[in-house]
Each structure stands twice: as structure tokens, then as C-alpha cells.
């Protein structure tokens, strides 16, 4: 059958290409383990193969980006990891346990491309939402929400409504909301894709600052090569549909990172490598 054949090809590619080795930093049990994950869903015309044999393991407290063309199943991958739906095949383990366990332990914080704030709630109210779900006391809710809103720089906008905020500010609220339950794993689905370049740079810097304060495992989906290199410890390059991981690139740039880094030869070399891989990934898919 075709599926098995594709797996072989991915494996071949991973070995032959010479960039498949997973980074050894932070030995111990990986936080997230995907084993040969497939996702097929039924659409009107035919079954659509979204993901084809993804095997990835992510060490604790690392920042991992997924980059790839539109429709390669990156967003689906995040929702699979969070257990929002089940893979057609393969297994996903979080801290060695089934996803359902992690879901019950509230291990995941989600940030989407659209801030998905509730228009009828103030900034503070939106940030308290998940704490409310967990039935925390009102005083504690407010205290926690305030703390994270201050962390994302919105301490002065507690009673504003979403329609009064800029796109960047809305995403800051979404990030604060995702952090309120102190999840181990932050799942970010193109969170800054809709923002202008200047706002995006600033949010990238702030995200790294927040991440250094509250160390978490981050899975970050993006279309932007620069963003992926700037933020990540590791970048996974995906091919067009059906999505496969075609390369696994460690980013060895020193931390803390500042915007000047973008002009360094190491950064440029890494970005160039990714650009080539993305172009290759597209050709690779076309040859199937």
C-alpha cells in the first residue's frame, strides 16, 4: 500500500539527507512522543490524507517550531497532541502517558492565529476564562489573571474590551490566558501570522522573555522562516499534504536572543538551509 511506501521514503530521506538526527540536549524522557502518526479525514470528494507517518519526540522545556506550506497539517498536529481528536493511526504520548491523561491534568495552553477572545468579556474577564472552568475562587482568578496580564505588558488595560485592542494586544491577552493554568506545554498555532512585521518582532522578543521566565515546552507552528529560527531550539520542516516531517534542524544560536541576531552569519545560514529544505519539500511532494 501507498502509506507504508511513503514511510520508507521519509525514513530514507531522513537518513540520506544527514539532517535527521534529533538533538540530544536535555536527556531523559521526552515530554511529547509521536510514533508514526497518521491522520486521514473524510471530505466531500474523497478521503484527505492530512498527516502521513509523523514520528517526533520533544524534550522538556524546548522550543520546537513546525514550518511548512499551507495545508500540510501543522494545525491538525497541534490539536492531535492536545487530544482534541484522535489520529487515524499511530500513538501520541505526553509524559509517557496517553493524551487523555495529560488533557485531564490540564497540561496544554493553546494560542491560535486568531486571538479568539470573547467580545463580551473585558481583557481581565477573558484572561480569567480558563481559571473559571477550573472553578478557582474569584479572588484567586483575578490575582492570577492580573499577574499574567502584567507579564505580557497589558497591566493597564484590564477593563478594556477586545474591540478596543490592536491585533498585537489581542494576541498578548491570548498568551496571558494560555498561561493562567500554568500548563507544561504551550501549543501555538501561527499566533503572530496576522500581525505586521514590527509588532511581530516585538511579540517574538516578549515571547522569548516570557518563556525564559516560565520555562515550558513550546510547539510553535509558523510560516515564517525567520520567526522559526529566531525562536526555536529545533525546527521541523514539513512537506505539503500529506504532511510529513522532511527535516529536523537544531538551531544552536545562543540565548538570550536579541533582534541583532537576525543579521549574524549563523542565523542567515540556518535560514538559508531551511529555505532550501522547504523548496525541496515541495518538489518532493510533487514527485509522489
Amino acid at each position, binding site marked *: 500500500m501507498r502509506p507504508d511506501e511513503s514511510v520508507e521514503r521519509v525514513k530514507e530521506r531522513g537518513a540520506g539527507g544527514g539532517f535527521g538526527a534529533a538533538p540530544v540536549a536535555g536527556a531523559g524522557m521526552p515530554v511529547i512522543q509521536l510514533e508514526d502518526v497518521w491522520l486521514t479525514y473524510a471530505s466531500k470528494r474523497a478521503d484527505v490524507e492530512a498527516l502521513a507517518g509523523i514520528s517526533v519526540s520533544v524534550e522538556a522545556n524546548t522550543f520546537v517550531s513546525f514550518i511548512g506550506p499551507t495545508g500540510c497539517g501543522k494545525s491538525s498536529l497541534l490539536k492531535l497532541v*492536545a487530544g482534541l481528536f484522535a489520529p487515524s493511526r499511530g500513538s501520541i504520548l505526553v509524559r509517557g502517558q496517553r493524551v487523555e491523561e495529560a488533557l485531564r491534568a490540564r497540561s496544554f495552553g493553546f494560542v491560535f492565529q486568531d486571538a479568539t477572545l470573547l*467580545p463580551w468579556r473585558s481583557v481581565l474577564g477573558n484572561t480569567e476564562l480558563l481559571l473559571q472552568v477550573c472553578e478557582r475562587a474569584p479572588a484567586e482568578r483575578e490575582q492570577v489573571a492580573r499577574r499574567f496580564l502584567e507579564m505580557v505588558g497589558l497591566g493597564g488595560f484590564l477593563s478594556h474590551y477586545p474591540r478596543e485592542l490592536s491585533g498585537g494586544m489581542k494576541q498578548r491577552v491570548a498568551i496571558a490566558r494560555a498561561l493562567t493554568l500554568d500548563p507544561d506545554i504551550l501549543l501555538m498555532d501561527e499566533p503572530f501570522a496576522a500581525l505586521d512585521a514590527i509588532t511581530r518582532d516585538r511579540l517574538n522578543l516578549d515571547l522569548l522573555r516570557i518563556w525564559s521566565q516560565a520555562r515550558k515546552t513550546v510547539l510553535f507552528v509558523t510560516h515564517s522562516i525567520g520567526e522559526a529560527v529566531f525562536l526555536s531550539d529545533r525546527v521541523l520542516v514539513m512537506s505539503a499534504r500529506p504532511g510529513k516531517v522532511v527535516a529536523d534542524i537544531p538551531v544552536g544560536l545562543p540565548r538570550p536572543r536579541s533582534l541583532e541576531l537576525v543579521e549574524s552569519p549563523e542565523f542567515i545560514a540556518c535560514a538559508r538551509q531551511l529555505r532550501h529544505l522547504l523548496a525541496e519539500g515541495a518538489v518532493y511532494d510533487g514527485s509522489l
Partner: protein
Amino acid sequence: MTEASRRAGGYLAPFLLVLATIVAWEVAVPVLRVAPYVLPRPSAILVELGRSADSLWGHTVVTLREILLGFVAGSAIGIALAIVIAQSQVLERSLYPIIVFLHTVPKLAIAPLFVLWFGYGLLPKVILVIVISFFPITVNTIYGLTSVDRNIIDLMRSVSASRWQILRWIQVPNAIPYLFAGLKISVTLAVVGAIIGEWVGTDAGLGFAILISSTQLRTPFMFAAITIISVIGVVMFYLVAVCERLLIPWQEPRDVTRTVGV
């Protein structure tokens, strides 16, 4: 132009239009020699409103009670039905056709049936108002409950939120603007429902008054009753619109004529 004078100008234009129409009507009836029993002049209607005030008031109270009871009960039923249907696709698929069927049955055709079942009193009218007014509320509310951003639901599920929590904090607030769109349509239908109910069998109410006055060629009285019915409809519509404004402060303030859709 200042904001205040611009707003005043916004109200002035429709007022002048209504006034001009009434004046034109007043002048046209004698000029075109229209018989008063065919089309009375606005002034004659006004005189009739004053002369028959007692009798008209009695009819108004009866009709108003039917409308209010029916509308409140219809809204409650409509909302409850929407919440039930929004819970699952199976429920939606099984209940929706029945509701659409109930809505498409001509109300005038089933009104006599209600008289047969529930007699000549208040009840058959209230039931007719319920049947005619719940549908837009149900359809709109279902849409509001189910048109929630997929990602928000996923966000809630990612922290193991219960169905009840999602309904209460996400779906219901999301449905409120849609609910009000439905209420605005329903409130005008409720007026129609009460009048139809009265035509089929009763001895009081504005619908009854219209029916009787038409057989007696008391056209000014008929127009007086029609005027009251229209005023009830318009006032109730704007009351709903005011409630909407008060209950949905998070929506962008819009031009009143656009909110209200007149």
C-alpha cells in the same frame, strides 16, 4: 455639523415624510371624492379614536394580553427548543423538520382547530401567538449557539471544560445578538397571530373590532383599530430594540435605523 444637530436631522427626515403622507392623504380623500366608508380621512380616524375611546380601550386590553402572554411564552419555548436542538446533530435532524412543518402550516388554517380544542377564550389566541412567534427565535438562536469559533470550543475542551460550561460561557452569550434578531421578527408576528386568533372566534379584541366594523361599514372605527394595532406592533418592536441595546453593550454602537432595520 455637530453630532447633536446631525442626529436631530436624522430624526427630522422620517418625521417629515410621515407628516407629508398624512397631509397628502387628508387632502386627497375629498379632492378625489373617495367615499368615507371606503377610505376615511386621517382626521376622521382621529375623531373616531376619541369618540370610541372606551370601546377601543377594552378591545386593546384583550388583544394586548394575548400578544404579551403569547410572545413571552413563545420566546421561552423558542429559546428552550433552540438550546435542546443545539446539543446534538441527531436532535437537530429529528426536531428541525417538525419545527419547519409547524411553521409552514398556514396559521389561518389551523386557527379554527384551536377554537375547537380550546374554546373561545384567551387560550387559543395565546397558543396561536406562540405557534406563530417561536420559529424565528428558535432558528436564530440555534444559529447563534452553533456559530461559535471552532478554536474557542477547542480551547475550552483543551482544559476539560464541561458541556454546561461551554454552553453557559461561550454559546449562550454568543447567541444573544442572534436571539434579538429573532425576537424583533417574532414580536411583529405575535401581533398578527393575535389578530388571526380573534378573527376565527371571539367576542372581544381589536381583531374582532375590525371584523365587526367591516360588516357594519364603520370604516373609521376599523381604521382606528388598525392604527392601534400598528402602534402596538411598533412600540413592542422598539422595546425589544431598546432591550437589545442594553443587553449587548459589547457590540459596536450602530446607527439606530440600521439596528432597527426600518
